[in-house]
C-alpha cells in the first residue's frame, strides 16, 4: 500500500472500475463520475469539490464528510447521507432512493438541489440559510420545516408542498425553473383560462395550464373539437386551443377503461383524429398500423 497522497488540483477518477479508494487521500477536487465506487475512505479529505455523479453502486458516504460542494446526481443506490455532513452546495438530483437525513449536519450559504428525489418525505430542521432550494419533483415531500430561509429562490414544481413556512414567507418561487407566484404554486384552483391565455411568457403560460389541469383549461378556454369517436373507455375527443406566439395545444380527452377517470393527453398539433393521436401515443407514426386487440 502507498502512504498518504496529496493532490493539489483535481483528481480525475471518472469511470474508475474499483469499488473503493485507498486511505490517506487528500485533494482539492475529486471527480469519480460514472465510477463503480461503493463507498469512500473514512479519512478522505476534500478541500473543494466532490463529484460522484452517476455512481450506480454508491451506497454510503463517510461520517463527517466535509467539502465546499458535493455533487451526487443520479446515484440510485444511495439511501442515506452521513452524520455530520458539511457543505455549501449539495446536488442530489434524481437520487431516487435517498430518504434518510442525518440527525446533525451543515448545509448552508449555497444551494441544496433535491430535484426528483422521489423518496424523501421530510427535510431536516438543521438546514439554515441557503441561496437556492430546489425540491421540484419531490412528490412525497409535503412541507418545508420552519427555519429554512433562502436568499434567491425555492423551486417547488411538482412536489407535494402546498405552502411555505413562516421563515420562507415572500420568498421568490419557481416551478421547475419557471418563476411563478404563490397563487400558481399553491392555489391552482384560483387560476383561470383567461389569465393563462393572456400570459405573454410562453413558459409561464405552460405552467399555468399545467397547474389548472388540461381538462379544466380546455373546458374554460372553449376548446375546438377536431374529432370525436368511441373507445373502450367511452367517448373520446381531440381538442385544439390556439395559443399566441406558441404552437396550438392539441390533446386527446379520453376515459380510462379500467378506472373511468378522464384524462387530457397532449399530442403534436398536426394530429387530425382521435385514433391518430392514440396511435402516436403508443409509438405508431402510421395510424393504420395501430390496431389494439385490447385497451385497459
Amino acid at each position, binding site marked *: 500500500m502507498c502512504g498518504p497522497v496529496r493532490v*493539489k*488540483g*483535481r483528481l480525475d477518477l471518472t469511470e474508475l472500475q474499483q469499488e473503493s479508494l485507498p486511505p490517506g487521500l487528500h485533494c*482539492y*477536487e475529486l471527480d469519480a463520475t460514472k465510477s463503480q465506487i461503493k463507498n469512500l475512505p473514512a479519512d478522505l479529505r476534500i*478541500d*473543494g*469539490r466532490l463529484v460522484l455523479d452517476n455512481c450506480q453502486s454508491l451506497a454510503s458516504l463517510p461520517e463527517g464528510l466535509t467539502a*465546499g*460542494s458535493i*455533487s451526487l446526481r443520479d446515484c440510485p443506490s444511495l439511501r442515506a447521507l452521513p452524520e455530520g455532513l458539511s457543505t*455549501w*452546495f449539495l*446536488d442530489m438530483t434524481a437520487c431516487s432512493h435517498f430518504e434518510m437525513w442525518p440527525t446533525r449536519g451543515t448545509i*448552508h*450559504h*449555497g*444551494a441544496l438541489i433535491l430535484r426528483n428525489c422521489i423518496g424523501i418525505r421530510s427535510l431536516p430542521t438543521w438546514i439554515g*440559510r*441557503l*441561496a*437556492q432550494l430546489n425540491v421540484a419533483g419531490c412528490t412525497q415531500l409535503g412541507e418545508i420545516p420552519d427555519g429554512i430561509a*433562502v*436568499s*434567491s*429562490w425555492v423551486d417547488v414544481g411538482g412536489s407535494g408542498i402546498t405552502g411555505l413556512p413562516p421563515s420562507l414567507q415572500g420568498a*421568490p418561487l419557481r416551478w421547475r425553473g419557471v*418563476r411563478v407566484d404563490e397563487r400558481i404554486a399553491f392555489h391552482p384552483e384560483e387560476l383561470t383560462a383567461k389569465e393563462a391565455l393572456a400570459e405573454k411568457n410562453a413558459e409561464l403560460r405552460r405552467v399555468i395550464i399545467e397547474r389548472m389541469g388540461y381538462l379544466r383549461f380546455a373546458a374554460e378556454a372553449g376548446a375546438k373539437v377536431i374529432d370525436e369517436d368511441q373507445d373502450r373507455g367511452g367517448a373520446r375527443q381531440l381538442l385544439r386551443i390556439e395559443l399566441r406566439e406558441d404552437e396550438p395545444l392539441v390533446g386527446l380527452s379520453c376515459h380510462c377503461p379500467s378506472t373511468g377517470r378522464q384524462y387530457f393527453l397532449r399530442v403534436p398539433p398536426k394530429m387530425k383524429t382521435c385514433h391518430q393521436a392514440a396511435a402516436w401515443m403508443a409509438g405508431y407514426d402510421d395510424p393504420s398500423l395501430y390496431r389494439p386487440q385490447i385497451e385497459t
Partner: protein
Amino acid sequence: MNRKLVYMDAKSSKFWNIDLTGSSFTVTYGRTGSDGQSSTKSFPTDEVAKKEADKLVKEKLGKGYVDAEAAVSDGAGSAGETNVLIPLIAFSSINRREDIGENAGTFIGKRVVDYDMEKPVRADVVYRFRTDWENDELIPNLEHFLANDAALSTMALVIGAWHGDDSERTPEELIQSLTSKKDRLPNLAAIYVGDITSEENEISWIHQCDLSPLLAAFPKLQLLRSRGGMGLELKSPEHENLRALAIETGGLDVGVIRSICTSNFPNLEYLELWLGTDEYGANHNVADLQPILSGKLFPKLKYLGLRNSHLADEIAGVVVNSPMIGRIETLDFSLGMLTDEGARALLKLPASPTLKKLNLHFNYISADLIKQLKALPLTVDASKPSDMEEDDEWRFVAVGE
C-alpha cells in the same frame, strides 16, 4: 468642509476637490498631475450650500471616486523607496461598458503610451508594446526598451495585441522574452497582458497561455491583469507579494478558477474575474467559486469583482450569505446579467462593518428595485448604459464574443 477625491480606471486618472466655506463652495477638478480648473458657487444660506456640497460628493462617490487620503494610505504601508505600494483604486480596470471598445488610457494611474524606438524614454508614463497588421515589432521594441537603463526603474508594462497577422499566436514567446530578461525589470510591479480591443481581436478569440511564469520571474509584482480566456492557465499560482489579480474573459474556464482556488497569494487584496457566458467557454458553476467565497482563501481581500457573468443572480444569492461580506469593502457584479432576482438577494445583505460599495453598473434590474438598492447604507452604482432598454427580454453579459 474640504474633501479631496480621486478616480482611476483604465480610461483616466483624475481628481475632484471641494472646499466649502460658509454659504459657498469651490470645486477644482482635472487630470491627475494637472492644476485642473475651478468654479465657485454661492448659495442663500450655509445649510443650502452644505446640502448641495454633500449631494455632489455623494454623486462622485457613486461614480467610483474615493477619498484621496484613503487611496494614498492604502498604498503607503511599509513601503521602502524602491517598493512603492500601488493604491487599491489604481488596480481598477474598465468601469463603464462603453469603455470596452478603447485601449487602456491609463494603467496604475499613469498614462499609457505606445513605445517608440525613435523617441526618448520617459519616466512619467507606462509603455505599451503591441503589434498590428503592418508592424510585427512587439518583441524587438520590448528588447530595445529593456536594453535602456530606464527599464531598471520601470514599475509597469502594458502588452497590447501580440498576434500580428497570426490570430492564433499566444503570448508565450513574449513572456519568455520578458522572463529571460527579468534582471532588466527588477521593479516591475504591474503588468497587463492583453490590452486588446474587440476591433483588434474579440475577447474570446484572444489566444492566451500559462501566465504564471510572470509570477515566478517578478517577485515585486503587485498586479497581474490579463484579457482573453482561450488557453489561459495559471499553472503555478504562487506569489508572496501579489496584491491584485484581474482576469478578463468572455468565458472563464473552470481550470483557471481551480488554480485560483488552490493558489497561494497570501497578500491578495483585489480579485477581479470576468466570468463570461457558456457561449464563449464558461464551463463553471457557482459551486466552483465556493473556496473564494468562503473567505479563508484570501484573508486580506478588500475588493471582489465577479463581473460580466451570466450567473450573476445565482452568485449574488450565495455571496450575501458568505462570511466574505464581513471583510471586503467593495463588491462588484457589474457588466453581468444581474436581474431583479439578484437584486432581491442583495437587499438581504447583512450589516457589514467593512462593506462600503456595491458596483452594479450594466444590469437588468427594474427601476423599483434599483430604488430599494440605493436605500442600502452603501455607495451603490446601479447605472445602465443609455442603450439598455427597460423591458428588453433579450439578455446578455456586457462582454462576450
